[in-house]
Structures are given as C-alpha cells and as structure tokens.
C-alpha cells in the first residue's frame, strides 16, 4: 500500500506566472491540491492613505500604478467620481478622447493577457504576436499622453491636452489592422486542439457562484450574466455607440478566453465609431485651478478590462479627499481562487490562475 504525505508548497512570491508579486501556499496530496491560501500585499503602496494628503489632480498619477496594464480606466474612474460630485460637464472632444484612449487600453490589456496566458500554459509564439500589436497601441498612447504605461492623461473636466494632429487618423488605421491580426490569432490558437484540451472544462464555476463571489468583467460574463457597466449603467458617452456584450454559458477558462477575445472586437467597434464622430472643440472644461469637491460622498463604478472598478470619495469640501477608496476588480476577482483550486490537479493551477486575469498592482492597492 503506497502512502502519500501532505506537502506544503510555496508558489511565489516570485513566480513567473503571477506577473507580479503573489504568493500561494498550497497543501498538496500527490498531485492534488487540498488547500490553497493566497498571500497578497507585497505590492501594497497605501494609495488610499497617500491620497488623503493630496489634491485631486495630484492623485491621478497614483491611479496609473494600480492597474498598470489599463491605466486610462483608472485615470477615468477618479476623474469621473470627482466630476460626478462637482457636476462638471465634460467637453465633447475630451469625452471622445477619453473613450478612444480607454478602449485602446482595453485592447492592449487583453492582448497582454492573451499573450502571457498562452505563454504560461506553454505556447511561446502567441506572446510575440500579442506584444507586437500591443506595442503599436502603447506607441499610440505614448503619442497621446507622453508616457508608455503611466499615462496621467486625464484631468478633472477633460484631458491634459489635445491629441497630436494626425493621431486620430493613425487610430483609424490601426483598427482594420488589429481586426486582421485578431483573425490570425484565432487561426493560430483558438481552434488548436492542444490548447482547447488544456483550457476546456477547467476552473468551472456557476453563475450563482460568480455573483456570490462578487466577480466582475469577463469572469462574470463567462457564466452567462450579460453585465457590462458600459451598457447597463452608461457613463461618459458609451450610450452613443453600438456594441455587444459578449457572454458565454460554460464558466470555464475557455469561455473566459472567448469573452476577452470578443471584447477586443467590440472595443474596436467602439473606437471605429468614436473616430468617425470625433468632434472639434475644447478638451478641458472650465474648472477651478484648485479643485474642491462639495461636502458629501459618492461611489461610482465603471467597466475596466478586468471588471468593475469603482471609486468612493468622502469629501469635507476641501481640496483633498477625506477618504478615497478604490474598488479594485482584481482584488475581488482573486477571492474565488482558493475555492477553484481545491481538489484540482496541480497542473491546472496556472491555467486557472491565469484565466482570472489579475494585475497585482491592483490586487494590493
């Protein structure tokens, strides 16, 4: 009779598949995971505490460092919260620039996920394709904002500055190119038998579980919940664009893959329409130099590439927030991991973790 002993195994904090600093303490019995305990906080920088001593505009660069793969949405959620409380009306052109920037960010973020996820589960070359295209988006956003990842582009009342002269034309050129590449991705990976066998039926959860665990984004939509804040609680100018909210019913890693890939297409649709409608005009509303938010509190939430990102501000009417809180989607999405890993095969660990699509900067705040 063969006797196996339970073994304690540390995955991380420096593990390549976490793309950040994340530790997972797991108890394994042979190949089977008995218990998994995530350990987080290695990247906690105390953004919320720091923000209490900063003026609103000064907080914007800190938001870049939460979800550094889609910093535009982070910029936006803070500005949106302040604007909601102040009742600022945003100039048209600024809204369009914001939407284009955010959607480009969403495509870039999903590309990074696609490349690294496949890399984690053993396919090397898709990573190279994904980063080639992602680099083009990064270049576009660099031209727009002056920074590759930490954009600091949005301001309360609009955006920092207007787009360079031929920028919109370049974005318009990028859309058909990206569509073409996306078709190539599907040819390369989506139908690949090895890949499909690797992800299909892995990391399944139900719709009820997804809601119970406060999952959002593709993690929620992969169970059939048609929920996208851009559609369901329209903010900015998203109500002007026609686009779908891709969903799947299976709730496994493969369905999350599909949701994200289709979201790229939908984002491209939005970008295309925004470029067509792109208006003239100012890019910054008339707001006071020193921004003071009226006394009270507000919580706003928007759709980031990873799910629902929210911002809560409690204000005393001063130029700094009394309390600032970010609802960080990766932090909420990661909670379900111990449940998913319990009883799983060791080899599925990375497949399941990767499919959640976390960014550790956001998990740790």
């Amino acid at each position: 009779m063969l006797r196996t002993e339970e073994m304690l195994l540390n995955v991380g904090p420096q593990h390549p598949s976490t793309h950040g600093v994340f530790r997972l303490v797991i108890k394994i019995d042979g190949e089977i995971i008995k218990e998994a305990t995530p350990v987080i906080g290695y990247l906690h920088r105390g953004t919320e505490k720091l923000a209490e001593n900063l003026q609103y505009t000064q907080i914007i660069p800190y938001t870049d460092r939460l979800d550094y793969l889609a910093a535009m949405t982070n910029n936006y959620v803070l500005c949106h919260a302040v604007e909601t409380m102040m009742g600022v009306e945003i100039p048209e052109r600024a809204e369009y620039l914001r939407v284009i920037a955010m959607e480009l960010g969403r495509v870039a973020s999903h590309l990074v996920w696609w490349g690294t996820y496949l890399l984690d589960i053993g396919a090397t070359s898709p990573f190279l394709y994904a980063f080639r295209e992602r680099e083009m988006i990064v270049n576009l956003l660099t031209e727009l904002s002056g920074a590759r990842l930490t954009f600091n582009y949005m301001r309360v009342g609009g955006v920092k500055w207007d787009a360079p002269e031929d920028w919109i034309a370049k974005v318009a050129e990028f859309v058909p190119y990206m569509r073409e590449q996306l078709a190539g991705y599907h040819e390369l990976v989506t139908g690949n038998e090895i890949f499909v066998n690797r992800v299909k039926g892995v990391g399944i959860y139900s719709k009820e579980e997804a809601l119970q665990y406060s999952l959002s984004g593709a993690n929620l939509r992969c169970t059939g919940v048609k929920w996208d804040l851009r559609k369901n609680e329209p903010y900015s100018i998203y109500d002007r664009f026609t686009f779908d909210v891709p969903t799947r019913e299976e709730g496994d890693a493969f369905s999350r893959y599909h949701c994200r890939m289709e979201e790229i297409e939908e984002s491209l649709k939005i970008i295309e329409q925004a470029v067509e409608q792109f208006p003239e005009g100012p890019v910054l509303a008339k707001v006071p130099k020193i921004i003071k938010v009226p006394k009270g509190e507000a919580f706003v939430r928007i759709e980031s590439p990873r799910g629902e990102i929210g911002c809560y501000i409690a204000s005393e009417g001063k130029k700094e927030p009394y309390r600032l809180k970010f609802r960080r989607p990766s932090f909420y999405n990661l909670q379900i991991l111990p449940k998913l890993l319990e009883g799983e095969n060791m080899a599925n660990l990375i497949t399941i973790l990767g499919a959640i699509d976390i960014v550790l900067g956001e998990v740790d705040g």
Partner: protein
Amino acid sequence: MSEKEDLAKQKAAAAAKAKAAALAKKQAKEEEAAEKPEGETDAAKQKAAAKPKAAALARKQAKAEAGEKPEGETDAAKQKAAAKPKAAALARKQAKAEAGEKPEGETDAAKQKAAAKPKAAALARKQAKAEAGEKPEGETDAAKQKAAAAAKAKAAALARKQAKEEAAEKPEGEMDIAKQKAAAAAKAKAAALARKQAKEEAGEKPEGEIDAVKQKAAAKAKAAAAAKAKSAAAAKKRTAVQESEEADTPSEISPNQSKLDQIVSAIESHVGQGALLENYINRLSKDVPTLVANPDTYFSIAKFLRYDEQLDFSYLSELHGTDFESHMEIYVHLHSFKMNQSVALKVKLDRDTPVIPSLVPLWSGANWPECEAYDLLGINFYEHPDLKRILLGEDWKGYPLRKDYEPYDVEV
C-alpha cells in the same frame, strides 16, 4: 556658400595652422637644445602653446576676410541654407502624397518639419494626406489630384513665403510674439485654404463618397445633438442639486425615489419599524438610494436585501470602512439585477470598539474587503471565517487609515 570654397578655405587654414605649429615646435626644440634653465623652458613652452592659438585666430580672420561670418552667424546661415533644400523636398513630398503614394516614415519626417519653420506647409500637406487617405484607392482621378496638388503646393508656398518674410524682417534671435502671431496667422490661412479645397473636392466626389460624407456628417450631428441633450440634463441636474442644497427641499424628485420608498417599506414591514436610522437619495452619487442601518439591524437588513425575492440584491459590489473621527462607518454597495438598481447600505459604529457582524455568510465576496477594513481601520467583523491582516501582515502596528494613526517603526 559653395562647398568648394569652403574646402579650399579649410585647407588653407589647416596649412597655416600646421606651419605655425611646426614653427613653434622648432623654436621649442632649439630653446631646449640651448639648455635653458627650467623656468625659462616653461616660458618657452607657454609661448609655443600660444602660437597655435594665434594661428587659429589668424585662420578665423582669414575666414572673415573671405567673406564668411563669425561662427554664430555662420551657423544661422548654414541652417538657412539647409532649410532651402528641405523646403524643396517638402514640396516634392507633398506632390507625392497627393498622388497617393505614402512612403512609410514620412510621418516622422513631417513631425520634425512641423516643428521647424514651414509649419504651415506641413499642416497643408497633412491635410492633403488625410484627404488622400479618405479616398478609396481605386478612385484616383489623376487630373483632379494634380490640380489639387498644385493648389496645395501654392498654399504651402504662400505660407512658407510669408513665414520666411517674417523671419527675414526681424533680427536674429528675436523670436518675439509678433512673429509667432504672424506664423500662426499664416498657418490658419493655409489651413483654411486647404479646408476650402477639401470642401470643393467633396462636392466633386462621386455618389458613394458623398453618401459616406453625409453619413459622417449625420453621425456628427447626432453626436452633437446627444451632447446638447446631455448638457441640458446636466445643467438641470446641477441646478437641482444647488437648489436642494440651498433650500434643503429638492425641487425635483429623483427618479430613484419610488424605488427607495419601495425598499424602505419592504424593510420596515419585514425587519421592523425603526430598523433604518435614515434613508435618503444621495444626489452626489448618481442618485443612489442610501440606507443607514444601526449596528443591531445591519445584518438582518442585509440578509433581507439579499434573500427577499422582490429585491434580490444578489451582488455585493463594494464594501469598505471609513474613519469619520466621530464614528466609524461601513459602506456597502449592493446591486440587484432583478430590480436593475443599486443601493448603498451604511452603518455607523462606535469608534473605540468598532464591531459588526460579517457579511460573508450572505456574500462570499465580502471576505477580502472585510479583511481589508480590519487591516487598515481595525474594524472587527465577527463570524468572519478568516479575519486577517490581508495587506500589511500580522506584525503591523496600528491601523493606517485611522485619522490618528502614527507610523510605528522599530528602528526609529
């Protein structure tokens, strides 16, 4: 200045320099050979060093005599000279762009040029390019394009000429406001001209294109109309907020008021009268219905909201705490897909002993957020399955998000 002249002069200067250097060397050698005392040798060396300097001076003078300007000016002159062929190249490229040929990397070059003087030209060219890009490739009307190219080149030339004249009139280094203004005016003129042309061209376009243009225009108009409606709504809302603040009686009833009433009456009939301390519409927070529970009824209200079939707040969107100094507060943002409505549930806690039931039995998603509130604010959630300092670690002293937090460091 021609290159030949330049070369000859340089050669002559070099020769003179070499001569002077040789002379100095020779002198130095002779002096050394004569075995002079050390101090004198040094002097000689200094002299020797001085000589090439003199040579350089002579060279400069020679240059000056040859009609060349001092260095600073020379550079300016050179730049000007360089600018001429650049301008020519620009004109050529423009023509190319019109003909539908868009070599790669041109954009970069264009950007650099745009930074230089013929800004207006670059602008006109870019517009031309954009137009060329808009057209479907198959629809190349050579004659039309040629005409357009000629017109555009003219506009560009005009703008350039103006810019140059402006530059020529003013002394060097005096990049004053007047000049900038003039440049801007020239730019605007050129842009206007180009736009006009574009319009004319649009008029000439075949039907398919016109349709596309019309569609675009329609889309823009639509967007503008939407914007107007939005701004009007925003203005209305703003005034409403102001009025409500000023008069303390909202002139306009929030669209969410009926839903709040429904929720409140349901809670009062099921959980008990007085279960809620307060309920109101938070105008600042997108009109979210806000319920304030007292610590005793907090859990039962949450449970009711979660499991009541009509309300069905199945989704916990957010949970966090705040230190308001007079009290601690928990803010929970819930969402019901059935009602398509969010609600904010708040509870005020005693600041010294903040204790509250955990919501994890109702929403598993409350697990980590409650750990976070415990970690950063020291709020205790009882019956939480695993309350731990999730971000800072168990050995951290104090609760950083409390307003009276003093950082503790063993080494200080």
